[in-house]
């Protein structure tokens, strides 16, 4: 984390095309990568840096009754849910604690409606805002540079960071929650009338946020065919960045039961809540489906599914055990041993079809 003095007003485009103004003569708390971006864009408008340790009030298990705390994690979507689930537990432990969170602007839609959180800030935040809190919980690099992340379930790991004895927490309280409002659902039903159809709906997250965890999208084609032939509707979820792959799959499937869901995140979450089943790689929609307790099938290679899905209800995962998998690789680079990752290539379309049918059978029985 960096604490940098910004000398002049500056507007910067954030992850979801929102423009944020950084005001001159203010100190901002930001991630190292955001700082690198600023160094490139406005090298002459950056002033002195304060060492982060000097402003960081780390929590060490003190009584939080009546205290004000801030949790900070930029993203991605799953990580925000790890943080919110742990904060719910912290709120159970200290009902009078006031919790605010700072997240990447594009992930604010996940926090909307979360009852344990009072205020949501968008990263970077000012030092003045930062100083309002008695304690700060920093979750940056908790998954990325932490050996424990290869042994602990992520929901446990985030609780441990909050000094919560996660072994005493019920499984029920380790399942993420997303609060939706009735009005949002009604708007979605009006806007996307196909959601009102009586057919069973299967959501598929087409690619993961990282190429190393992405299942080859073209291998979903036989899966989509199988589903439509069995009278399911298929909803393909993804961001603008993945719209080409999604449009390709919609076109190739040649079926009026296949829909592209490339929508703003909050809308996509609302639509996801209408799904009867979900198929996803190790990425955000696994956790969104988990939060809505939708029966789901996870596709895992670089990480073990138990590290993410262990507490979800009615969940099945396909894990790969190979010479190099699980490798616990992070970041935005493809696997150095091949792209798509060789481990994920081991999972055939037929295996997904067979496992999906098994999932349906288990639910019905």
């Amino acid at each position: 984390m960096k604490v940098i003095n910004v000398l002049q007003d500056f507007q910067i485009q954030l992850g979801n095309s929102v423009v944020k103004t950084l005001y001159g003569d203010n100190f901002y708390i930001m991630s190292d990568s955001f700082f690198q971006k600023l160094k490139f864009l406005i090298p002459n408008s950056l002033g002195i840096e304060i060492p982060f340790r000097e402003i960081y009030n780390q929590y060490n298990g003190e009584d939080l009754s009546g205290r004000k705390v801030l949790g900070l994690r930029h993203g991605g979507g799953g990580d925000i849910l790890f943080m919110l689930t742990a904060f719910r537990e912290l709120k159970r432990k200290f009902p009078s604690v006031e919790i605010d969170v700072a997240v990447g602007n594009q992930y604010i839609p996940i926090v909307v409606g979360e009852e344990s959180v009072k205020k949501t800030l968008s990263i970077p935040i000012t030092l003045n805002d930062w100083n309002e809190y008695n304690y700060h919980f920093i979750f940056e690099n908790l998954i990325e540079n932490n050996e424990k992340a290869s042994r602990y379930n992520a929901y446990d790991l985030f609780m441990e960071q909050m000094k919560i004895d996660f072994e005493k927490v019920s499984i029920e309280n380790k399942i993420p929650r997303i609060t939706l409002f009735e009005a949002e659902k009604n708007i979605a039903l009006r806007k996307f009338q196909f959601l009102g159809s009586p057919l069973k709906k299967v959501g598929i997250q087409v690619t993961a946020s990282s190429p190393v965890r992405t299942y080859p999208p073209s291998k979903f084609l036989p899966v989509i065919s199988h589903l439509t032939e069995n009278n399911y509707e298929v909803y393909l979820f993804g961001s603008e960045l993945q719209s080409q792959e999604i449009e390709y799959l919609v076109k190739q499937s040649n079926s009026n039961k296949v829909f592209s869901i490339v929508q703003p995140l909050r809308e996509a979450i609302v639509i996801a809540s209408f799904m009867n089943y979900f198929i996803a790689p190790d990425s955000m929609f696994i956790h969104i489906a988990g939060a809505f307790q939708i029966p789901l099938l996870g596709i895992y290679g670089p990480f073990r599914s138990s590290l993410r899905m262990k507490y979800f209800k009615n969940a099945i995962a396909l894990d790969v055990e190979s010479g190099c998998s699980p490798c616990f690789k992070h970041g935005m680079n493809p696997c150095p041993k091949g792209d798509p990752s060789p481990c994920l290539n081991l999972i055939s379309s037929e295996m997904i079809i067979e496992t999906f049918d098994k999932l349906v059978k288990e639910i019905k029985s």
Partner: protein
Amino acid sequence: MKEDRISQETNSEKKKLDEIYEDALNRVANAIFSNVKILIEERLSSLEPILSEIETIKFNTVALSTLLHSEGFFTEKEFKECFNEVVKSFGVVDEEGKIKGKVVLNKYNFSS
């Protein structure tokens, strides 16, 4: 005599040309391999521990194929074949080029 002189001159020319050619080849080779080194560092840095264990010939194959592919000398198919050769040596794929490993099914929290 005249023919001998011409022949000698020709040989001398040829030798000189060969030397120039060889020198040029060396320069090209050095240039390629210094580029290759950069490519390795830039693109395959995470592979260093593995690459160091691979025989030189394979090391050069992947590096060279990466370079030649980026310069447009290889088709995608040729590049992949070449790359797969090296991937084999990582122990990810077997002799037939099939990825080694197994898929395991895990179930979580089914309500009975």
